[in-house]
Each structure stands twice: as C-alpha cells, then as structure tokens.
C-alpha cells in the first residue's frame, strides 16, 4: 500500500531529526515507552462517537444501564490503550544480514523478532512498501523478511521500519519507527553483455582458451550449502528440494585457467550505468562458470581470483562506483 501522507519538507525534516534523537539507529532495538506511539484509530474515534451516542440515549431515556454501558465502552477504550502499548512494548527487533540483491529487485530485509510475552498481529513495513503481517510474536525469535522496492544500485538504506499494531480491538494504533541500521549494498542490475564478452554467454564450453580457461565438468558442483532466503533461485538445487532435503544452493567447483580481465573500458561508450550492468552480468557469468578473473575499475583494481568472496567484492565495487563517470579513459 502506498502512502499518500507526505509531510511538507521542513516539518518532515524536523520530525526525522526528532526521531533520530529519540530513537537512534541500532541493529537491535527493544521497544519501550520511549519508542511506542499511540493514537486512536479511525475505528477508535467511531467507538467514542458510539459512547457519546449511548450516553445521550441513556440520558434522554433516563436509563442508568444504558449510561453504564456507554461508560463501560469508554473504559474499554482506556483499557485498550494499555493493551495496545503492551502489544509492542518489550518486543525486540534486530536486523540480520540481508541476502544479495540487484538493483530493480525487491529487496528483503530480514528482521528477527521476539517478545517476552505473546504479541498479536504486528504489521511491519518500510515506508511506501508492502506490509508484512506477523500473526504472533513469541519469546522464540522468528525471522521475517520485509520487502523493500528498490531501483538503485549502491548503498541502500531502507529507512525506518514501521512496526504497527491495532490489537486488541482495533481502537488504538500503536506504532514505532525503528532504524535498524541495516544499510545494504545493492548490486547493479545485470545486463547481458553483447560486446567482447558476449561469448561468455554462449553455451559452448571451448571458446577462447587464451581468455582464461576452464576445465570441462564445470557443472559439477563443489557441494551444497544452506540456501539464504532471498538468494537467487537460479542456484537452488531443485532436485534436492524435491527430495525433501530442504532449500540448498549449488556451489560450483573451482576451475583453473588463466585470469581474465574485466574493465569498464571493455565496452563501447554507452552510459556508465549500462556498462556497470554489463560488467555485473559478466562477473556473475564468470563466477558461475568458476573462471578466474580480475576487475579493473578506473583507479581501483581487483586482482584476479575466483570464488564467492571474490564475486561479492567485485559486485560491491561495481555497485559503489560513483554515479558520475570519472574523467579517465
């Protein structure tokens, strides 16, 4: 659901500053009276209208029981304020490492939640993003993935996570905005390379030995490891999943061969973003095939290597290239 509530610039700034001082960013936050806000919901206001209506009704008919009912409902509203606070207070929220993601993907930020006493129907979302509903938070920590739509590459911070609850009767909205300090580096969106590296995409295995070889049998994987939620589905070992062994990710065997160099200058002078995207794609392809490669990014050079760590450092380097091209060829 999209928010159409935008505060005017200055006010919003002030509000954010105030929030930052009140609720500083931290990877682990326990909600308490400082961090929980409560206001009546629309239904709560309707409820109060009913209370008033019943009171008038009881007064006009001089019926003490009707007046009593209206006061009881008023009192229930009061009780609900306490309970709606209780439904958030004591909840501990912590961020864990997010899975890799490319620009344009919907990011997911894993959030671990637990509470000393059960809390019901807690809604989590980042501003302007889809809401995640957690039916029950217990003292056993559970991880939820909070979606965040993102188009940009580079360091992406989802902003403050909104935690909201209307339990127990929907009369009050209790909420909090926590900054879980979970900035995430988003890789550039991969774009199929059509230039010099296009052969990488071909299915032939025996092309260009001089470009850093790879031995046959690349598709034999090194092993399986636990799938990280949110990871690309391309590498999931579906067969094993079907066998009931759970979500596993294939890791490929390390090949041998001469290093291949990837560089920003490999591409015709298209836009920087498109070149970065193509490089990202190439890095993925090479890593997938287990090839050894190096990366040349203007002043920065990443020495040839292979493996997941190498891939990540390459992709991160690509993601963090400043948007403005450097004056170097």
């Amino acid at each position, binding site marked *: *659901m999209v*928010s*159409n*509530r935008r505060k005017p610039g200055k006010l919003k700034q002030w509000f954010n500053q105030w929030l930052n001082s009140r609720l500083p960013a931290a990877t682990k936050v326990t909600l308490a009276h400082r961090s929980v806000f409560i206001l009546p*919901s*629309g*239904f709560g206001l*309707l*409820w109060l209208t*009913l209370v008033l*209506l*019943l009171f*008038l*009704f*009881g*007064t*006009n*008919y*001089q*019926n*003490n*029981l*009707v*007046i*009593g*009912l*209206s*006061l*009881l*409902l*008023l*009192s*229930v509203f*009061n*009780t*609900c304020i*306490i*309970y709606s*606070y*209780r439904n958030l*207070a004591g909840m501990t929220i912590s961020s864990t490492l997010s899975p890799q993601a490319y620009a344009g993907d919907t990011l997911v930020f894993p959030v671990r939640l637990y509470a000393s*006493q059960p809390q*019901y*129907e807690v*809604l989590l*979302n980042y501003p302007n993003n889809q*809401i995640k*509903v957690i*039916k*029950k938070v217990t003292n056993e920590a559970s991880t939820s993935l909070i979606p965040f739509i993102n188009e940009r590459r580079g360091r992406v911070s989802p902003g403050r996570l*909104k935690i*909201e609850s*209307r*339990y*127990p*009767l*929907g009369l009050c909205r209790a909420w909090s905005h926590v900054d879980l300090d979970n900035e995430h580096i988003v890789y550039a969106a991969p774009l199929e390379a059509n230039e010099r590296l296009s052969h990488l995409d071909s299915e032939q295995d025996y092309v260009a030995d001089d470009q850093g070889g790879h031995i046959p049998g690349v598709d034999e994987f090194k092993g399986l490891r636990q799938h990280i939620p949110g990871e690309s589905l391309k590498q999931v070992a579906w067969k094993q999943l079907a066998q009931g062994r759970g979500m596993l990710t294939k890791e490929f065997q390390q090949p041998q061969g001469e290093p291949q160099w990837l560089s920003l200058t490999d591409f015709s002078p298209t836009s920087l973003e498109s070149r970065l995207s193509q490089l990202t794609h190439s890095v993925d392809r090479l890593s997938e095939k287990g090839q050894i490669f190096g990366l040349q990014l203007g002043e920065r050079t990443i020495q040839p290597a292979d493996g997941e760590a190498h891939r990540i450092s390459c992709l991160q380097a690509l993601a963090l290239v400043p948007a403005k091209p450097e004056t170097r060829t």
Partner: protein
Amino acid sequence: MSSEHSEIISRHSLLWLLLANVAILLPLYEKLTPWTMAICGICLLWRLGIFIGKVAKPPRYLVTLLALGSAITLALIINSIGLLNGLINLLVLGYALKYIEMRKRRDVRTVVLVGYFLIALTFINQQSIIYTLILGLVTTINTCVLVSLYHEGNKLKETALMGSKLIIQSLPLAALLFIVLPKLPPLWMVPQNSSATTGLSDQVSFGDIEKLTRSASLAFRAEFDRSPPTNHLLYWRALVMEDYNGKVWTQHKSIKQIEKDVQFTVSGRARPLGNPVNYSVIAEPSYQNWLYGLDVAFSDDSNISNLPDYRLYAKRSVDQQYRYRVQSYLKSPMSPVLDDKVKQINLSLPEASNLKTQAFANQLMQEYPDPLQRLNALMNYFNQGDYFYTLSPPRVGPQQIDDFLFENKAGFCVHYASAFTFIARKTGIPTRLVTGYQGGEWNQQAGYLSVYQYMAHAWAEVWLEGKGWVRFDPTAMIAPQRVLEGFDAIFQPESSYLLDSPFSPLRLREFPLLNKLRLSLASMDYYWSVWVLGFDSNKQQRVLQKLLGGVTKQKMSLFMLIAISLIGLTIAYSAGLLTFRQRGEQHATKYTQICNKLSGKGLERRLDEGPLDYGKRVELAMPSLANEFALFTQYYIALKYQPLTKEGQKKISKLFLRLFKQIKKKL
C-alpha cells in the same frame, strides 16, 4: 496508510460473529415483529450455511431487495408498533442484513458497533439484575468478535479469555465514572417506548380485578422514611371512577381531559396541611401514567402532576422503573367543599337499571335519614347478610348489581364497591369508585414494602358534608382479614395469583428457609432498583458525601486522580507490564544487610571482593559464624548466578531467608 492488510474474515471471527448475533438478538425477541424475526432467522441460517460451506454468499441485489422489502413493511406497520419499536426493528434488520453480506474487516466492526447499540436498546425494557448480567455477557461476546479479528489461528478459549479480561478490567473505571459523572436530566424529548399496558386499567367491570388477582408480578415498591402505616391503612389510590353505565365504571371525561393536557398545565392542587408520611415509590413499568399514593398524596416531583381528584399522575407513561417521592397527609380531608357539578356527576345513575337495588336503596333512605347512619347501616348490611367473598364469582346478567346483591351474594371487591356506590348514590350521597392496591408485603431485610398486582383492590369514596371524601371499603365488612392482614390471609395463593404462574418465586413462601432466600433475592433486586436503576443526582451527592466527606473541587480531583491511577496500574500490572522486583534483588538487599552488619564489626567487604573471598575472610575472622555464613554465601551465589528451576529457586530462597534470620540474630 497501512490500515487494512488482509481483508478476509477468518473462520474464527465468523464463529464469534454467529455467537454474538444469536446472543444479541435473543433478548430482543419481545420487541421484534414476526417479519423482522423471520428475516433475522433467514440471515442467521444463511450465515450458518456459509460457515459450514453449504451455501454461497447471497448476491448483492438479493440483500438490497430484502432490505427494501423489510423497510417498506416496517413503514406500513410503524403506526401500530410505535416509533421506538419501529426504529428498533429497523436497526435489527440492518444488523441482520449487514451481517449476511459482510465481506471485510470493516464490515465486522460496523456489525459489532451496531451490536452494542442493540444491547443498549434491550436495556430499555429489561433492567433486572439477571438481565443485566446476561447482557453483560452478551457485551463480552460482542467484544470477543473484535478480539478475534486479531486472534486468527488462536483457540476460541483464548479469545474468550482476552475479551472477558478486557471487560472485567474495564469495570472499575466504568463504575467510578458512573458514580462521579453528573446525572443529567433528559436533553430532549424522545419517542416513547410503547408496549401492552399492565396493571390496573382506566375502566372497571366485574371481571377486571379478578384478572389481576391472577398475577404475581410486582406492581411497585415503597420505602418509608419511618415505619410504614399498618396494613389496614395501606390503600394505594390509583384511579377514580365516576361514570357508571350499568356495566362499566369509567373516569369522568373532565378528568380525562385534565390528564390529556397535563404536559402543558401546571399542577393545580395545593399542598395539604399537616404532618405528612414521607416515602418513595418505585413503580414498575406499567406503560400507563397513573401512579400510586396513600391519601392524601402529594408529590413535588416536576414530572408528576397532582390531579384534582387527589391522584398522582406521571407526565410521561411509566415505561421503565420509576422512582418518585411522595408525601401523604393521612389526616387531611379531600375536597371539604364540593363543586356542584362534581356532586351531580357523583350522584348520577343509569336510568332504569338495577331496579331491585334502587328499591332497596329507597327503603334504606327511609329508615336512616342521616347520611352517615345510612352508610353505616349499609356497611352493616353487608356484614350481617350472608355475603361471600370469592375470587371466582358466579356470572351476572344485564342487571349486574341486582343479580349480585340478591341472587348470587358472592363477589369480589369490585362487586361490593360497585353495589355500595350504586346504593349510596341512589340515596343522594355523592359516591365514587376508587381502584388501586391494598396492603403490601414487608421485606424486613431491606425495609421496604412490595405491592403485587394481585393486591389490586376497589373501594368506595363518599362525600360527607364537612369531612370531604371519606373512604368506605365494603369488602372489609365481608372479609375483614383481607384488609387487616392482607390478601394472603384470605386466599390460597395456588388458587389465585399462583394459578397461572407455576414458576413464581412467591411459591417459596410456604418453606421458611427458601422464603428467606426469596426475600434476600428480593432485597437484592430492591437495592439494585434503588442504587443502580434509580441512581440520580441526589443519590450521587449522598455517595460522594460519604466517600469524601464534603465534596470540594480539590478533593474531587484528588480522588479521581488516585482512583484512576490505581485502576491504570492494576490493569497494567495484570497485562504484565509491571514487574516489581527483579529476580534475586530481594536476596541482594538481604545479603548487603548482613555485610553492613559485619562491617560494623570491623569486617568490611572490599569493593573488589567477591562473595566467596569475602565469605572465607568472615569464616576465618568469626569462627562461631563460620558454618552459617558459608552456607549463606553458597545460597546467595546460587540464587544470583545459577539457572534454577522455579521450585529450586523457591526452596533455596526459603533456606536463604532462614539463614538470614539466624545470622542476624547472632550478630
């Protein structure tokens, strides 16, 4: 805004809705037209079908059609059922139809809010303790519907627990507000609740009172400021009948007119002189306007008119329990001077009726020229003659009084009073028939008088020069105990007021112990009427006075502040928000206490010293304490640092405290 996320109503909520629907509509059954009931039934069945999965949701047009149809039907019959009933039915229909076409959470909320309103409407007619408890339960069920929206996948019991918790924890604040909030008079006129009238009627024929003697329901209760008058003085006047057409006694039209205009006129009768008997009457709903009072009754209540025929008349019909103050001037005369017109009215008789009785009257007149003597002779005549007092008198023909007086010689109070009035009028004495209640059951525990419908009575009032209207009760001549000791002294309850009500609590009278229980319950009901239903600004003042001793603004606000924070803390505590002492904290203070005592003896614990090291030092320095202190230290460490089960914790804590006491003693 992130208001709604999952709009589907869970089965859990649907189940609660079914429960709430039945619970809310059942207590309202009296108010519903057969039409409304039928539609509610259909909706409920349909919903049940949806719940079980046999039927699909009804199409929109069908619901709209039903709604239109029922609204039109209601509009057609609204005149016969009254505006308020019409509105109730409309609301119920809306409730039922909305209920069936609910799709989203928002619809559920609407249904719940309307549900609360329907509960409030039920309170208009049902105000007994039992009903209040039932409706309290219904309120809880309705609240559970809302809880269930957030309790998907939970058990029914958990939701019920949460709902009841919310209601119960809200009760104290509600009670406080009820006591403290000002009691306002009605702000504007509202449509009145109409229902079949109960109790006395504004016309009396031979059969009428007899019907009432079959009713064991309460007519009203009275609480006297001092001790109540004895039974034979308890003539509760309600209606005065001045017109007789040979069959039926009715009120005179001039009085009827005054009753009609009572809204717009100021009460006309002056306050009688003398020492009054002060009391309050709590009238049960009769849907009539007349009230009850002992002669000569006068009320200062602005909603009551003191009519010229010495009756009390409510400006609005009594459609719920109504409590009013009355002063009765028992010795004050009624109309010492009588208007000629009124005199004529009270002398007129239908022509050529009851000729035998008329002849008897003429004969009486010749024998006793003095009016008072004549009346006494007439009373004696009833006493001496073989007249019989019965609740099931034989039938009479068109010449009613002749048949009764000379043929059947058996009748009920109306028969005797009618005959008496007829004869007295014929002999030239202005006389009228009065109906009301006679007697009352005294509740010793709570100190009030209950008057039941079966105590309905009729008697005569005679106007005597210089004395005004004087009460003559011929029934007292035939059955003196009826008046002296009350209705129950004469009749078997089983053959009268219990005949038609097999479950009346009055049946328990025969069993002393159970009767005591019955009276206790009746007292409870009485206190309920006085302190809850009749809680008005006077009572409020009294309660606050008692609670605070002089109501000032400061005292009031302080009282509210304390009460509200106490209530808030209690709720917060029971919600698990406050935890008073951390585990082990209590033990730490005890331990420090001992350490402080020891340091007084020169064995100070250094800041960097752990309990173990310190313990060793103490053991060396004070051998007499060595064993105990070693154990004490061990327990302390266990309590503070070891993960213990709850039972283990309890056990060690106990031992620790025992040692604490021992060591303290030795030190």
